[in-house]
């Protein structure tokens, strides 16, 4: 069985990366890559076609000056800047100001899911841009795995139900 490629854009602010990623690795079904910032997330999306992309709402900007500008305009706070949401709006929400050179596969809204502390708060905004999969980090250690499977089922790439 070919492993599915998954990108998780997550800043690991509370060291939750290991906790959520371990169940994913234990399945032996996924190649899980990480991006810690918005800049790194965009770079990885440019360089590789992922079957599923999981995005946290609160991510730091990274080196790209455009992301840094938004971050500082929002008071230099990951929580206020919500760069993960802005990234999604850029990629799949039609406002592709900063993500024009992404490959077509990266623009497919069905590939994206949100795993965040704020998933419930941003639900209307996510639904407005066509993102259908979102979960809260408080839903237990299996939540990342469940979200990835939900994305893949939505794309008819898995039969996990």
């Amino acid at each position, binding site marked *: 069985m070919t492993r599915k490629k998954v990108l998780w854009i997550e800043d690991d602010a509370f060291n939750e990366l290991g906790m959520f990623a371990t169940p994913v690795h234990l399945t*032996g079904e996924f190649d899980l890559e990480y991006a810690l910032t918005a800049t790194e997330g965009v770079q990885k999306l440019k360089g590789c076609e992922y079957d599923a992309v999981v995005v946290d709402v609160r991510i730091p900007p990274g080196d790209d000056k455009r992301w840094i500008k938004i971050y500082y305009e929002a008071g230099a706070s990951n929580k206020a800047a919500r760069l993960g949401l802005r990234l999604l709006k850029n990629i799949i929400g039609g406002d592709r100001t900063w993500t024009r050179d992404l490959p077509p596969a990266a623009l497919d809204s069905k590939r994206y899911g949100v795993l965040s502390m704020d998933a419930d708060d941003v639900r209307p905004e996510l639904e407005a841009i066509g993102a259908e999969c979102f979960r809260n980090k408080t839903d237990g250690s299996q939540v990342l795995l469940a979200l990835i499977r939900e994305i893949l089922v939505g794309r008819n790439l898995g039969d996990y139900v």
Partner: protein
Amino acid sequence: MPSDESLVLAQILLGLLLFTVGIPALIVEVRVEEPLRRLLHKRIRLKPIIRLGIFTLLVVAVLILLSGVDLGAFIEILLKIVVIFVVGQFARVWVYIYKNVSVDRVIDRLVRDITAKRKINDPELDELIRFGEHLKGGEKDRVIRVIGDLCGRVQNSSDYNGTQLKELLRGLQRVVVVNGMLAHHQSAYVVVEKCWQLLVPKKLVDDWDGRVLREVAGVLGSLAVSPLLGSMPQRWMSAIPYVVDVPYQVGMAAIVATEYRIAIEALSRISGTAEAKNTLPPQLIALVARFHAAGPSAGRTAREFLDKLDRTPAAIREATESASVEFTRNCDYATADAIGTFLETYQ
């Protein structure tokens, strides 16, 4: 020369001399810690400063001896010109010392020196790396980024053949190993990832630099297995995709530190590579055996990775036996013994 005038000039020169000797020394003592201080002192060439000091003392002696002596207008003007010249030299010395005490300026100059000669294994690079080892915080981070820029310049030059980064990458490793914090690991990760990405399209991943990059990622990844460094071990494992040696090194360090979540990721990555390349690498067998040695539940979890590869028991046995031989040959007896024990129980 009028007595009061010559004595004032002598006093000014003496004051400047004491200031030049004392103040920069004080600044260096206060601002810079010991190993770095030695490096900074080494960068300041003392001979010209000592010569200026001796010359100043001579001028002061002359001014004192000739105070009250009528020398005539021409000699007096000449003496004043000499005093002005000495003051000018002091100004030059201050600028020189300032340039060599500011770490940022030192880094800039070292980079200029390194790039001017278009030769990477220069003493200047060694000095830059030694600075990097002893610096902390943002200054250490600056050195890492500078090394990254230098790597980029080398890799983007037309004569790059996959073998010229060794010194820079080993330097990067040294800088992070000595007191590297999370931010330094993250910056070094960016450098390693970029270097690898530039090797891939040029099909140079199996050359020297590719090997050194894997070593650096392995060493820094193992070092990152620490509660203070969060997810850095996982990041290091992802810096170079589809290789087994980096996750193996990190996974082994994680098992020793009983950080099994990290070790599971290492196992997942190695088995993913084994699956993609249709091989049974000895590192996979070794890591499974180490899990097995850690206890029954760890052993069962690791065994599942092996089972998912859809290999016959005979093929796994054969790979396990040859892995045992290989680790014994490499004098990694603990791993060889773990593999032997695993083989005895393998069904």
